[in-house]
């Protein structure tokens, strides 16, 4: 009988130089870590990418250790705190030099195209700014073929508003199937991603014990709101959703969330894409 590997990302009594004893089990879904300081972050990402193994304990993904399994490493999409590329005449050449295959390179090109940054691939690597380096690295991470886990450090920091929305969509899509771990020093950003689940402080993980952010209600009135409702229902930021038909024939969509700004942008984007008529968009704070 063939055993099926668990898709979970596990840190089993793992201990490093900066990270203290850690036991975590991350099932498929979106997990956000609010990093209160930088201690242990680099070490954590080095473990997750398979560059290092913990001094004690172990890190496993699908019951295998990334640092011992080159094939497994190919399926981990990662964005490290500090990204760099080797010197090369162009970014594409640098990516080939580090062993990125043609399919991933092609997918990276497509993502950069969507971000309006395709030109970066033709630049010399030393001419890229740190932000552009991160943009390329993020595109490369999300172009990973059949990822088993996604681990990203401040994924949206190098993007503009449109880019953020696009990338967030892709990240959320991954979170429906595999563990997605996002580390951010910005608690507001973590809150937008449905609230942080963990806090990393002084090399120790602990569950996020803070009170949840205030709830907001988005009231969207228009014609053909069902499409918007079906799109929004897929998002983890949405806590509740109600669709009612008004006496005048218009439809009213009420969405409960704690990230109204992100959702508002999403709504506007969906409406622009589908050509739905929007009559009103209103946000109110609700208790609890």
């Amino acid at each position: 009988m063939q055993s099926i590997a668990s898709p979970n990302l596990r840190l089993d009594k793992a201990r490093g130089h900066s990270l203290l004893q850690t036991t975590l089990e991350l099932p498929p879904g979106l997990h956000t870590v609010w990093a209160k300081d930088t201690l242990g972050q680099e070490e954590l990402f080095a473990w997750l990418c398979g560059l290092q193994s913990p001094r004690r304990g172990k890190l496993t993904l699908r019951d295998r250790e990334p640092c011992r399994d080159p094939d497994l490493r190919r399926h981990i999409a990662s964005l490290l705190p500090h990204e760099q590329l080797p010197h090369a005449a162009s970014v594409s050449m640098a990516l080939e030099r580090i062993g990125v295959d043609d399919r991933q390179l092609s997918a990276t090109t497509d993502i950069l195209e969507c971000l309006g940054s395709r030109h970066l691939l033709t630049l010399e690597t030393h001419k890229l700014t740190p932000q552009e380096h991160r943009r390329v690295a993020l595109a490369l991470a999300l172009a990973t073929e059949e990822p088993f886990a996604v681990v990203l450090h401040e994924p949206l920091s190098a993007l503009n508003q449109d880019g953020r929305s696009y990338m967030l969509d892709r990240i959320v899509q991954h979170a429906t199937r595999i563990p997605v771990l996002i580390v951010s020093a910005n608690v507001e950003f973590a809150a937008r991603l449905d609230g942080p689940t963990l806090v990393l402080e002084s090399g120790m993980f602990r569950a996020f014990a803070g009170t949840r952010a205030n709830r907001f209600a988005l009231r969207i009135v228009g014609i053909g709101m069902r499409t918007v409702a079906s799109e929004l229902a897929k998002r983890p930021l949405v806590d509740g959703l109600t669709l009612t038909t008004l006496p005048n024939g218009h439809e009213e969509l009420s969405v409960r969330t704690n990230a109204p700004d992100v959702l508002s942008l999403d709504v506007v984007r969906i409406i622009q894409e589908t050509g739905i008529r929007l009559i009103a968009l209103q946000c109110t704070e609700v208790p609890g």
Partner: protein
Amino acid sequence: MNRAPHSHSLSLRTETLPARTGRRQQVLCLCRHMLTRPLHVGFILSGITIAILCQRNDAQLGWAQFRYVTCGLLIPILCLLASPSFRSVATITALDALRIRYGKNRRHLAFRRLFEAISIAFALGCSSLLIGRLITVPFGRAAFDHNLVIDLGVIAVTTTTYTVLLNALASLGVGQHGSAIALGIDLTLGHGRTVFSNLVPHRHVVEMLDAHGIFRGVPLPSAWVLLGMSCAAALWIAARTRL
């Protein structure tokens, strides 16, 4: 609170050479590397010392053997420990880290790096001895000919040659593990004849080299001891890089 990475942690970024944008910068980069690589120079000097001492007759144990061990083993080990670039020996390069991250087998990379280091070391070691030979031939002497002036001259030329070549290679991004290369040079210079006489199937090649005064007079048993020690050191370095 930020804290510096632990000294034993595997650094993801070790040696990144500055962008080579102009000839002046290239020269400055080369000079900087030449001045900041005491480890390389230490290894090279110790290798040459071994080579000279190997010319002497150390059949009798005692002071000669002591000198041999002191110069051949302690100097390189002290250079290794004292050097600020010691930590770079125990770390993986940024490029290798990226390759490993995107799915390369780290053992494959390690073997390739060791092979690269050893082959470059052999090439440099042999060419340097030939340079020494070519310099001394016009004066009717063989390389390392028990003459202090000639020995010092050859040391100066070979040291300069090594330093320039190693740093030129490093600035080109080849053989970033210069310390491993230097270890290989150490091994080549000290035990060249032993390795040749045992590895090269055609003994007439060795005889020819002997006839021309190259790789001559290397005492076999002590050379094997040093060879073993050098290999152990190379393995230790490999283990430090968690290969």
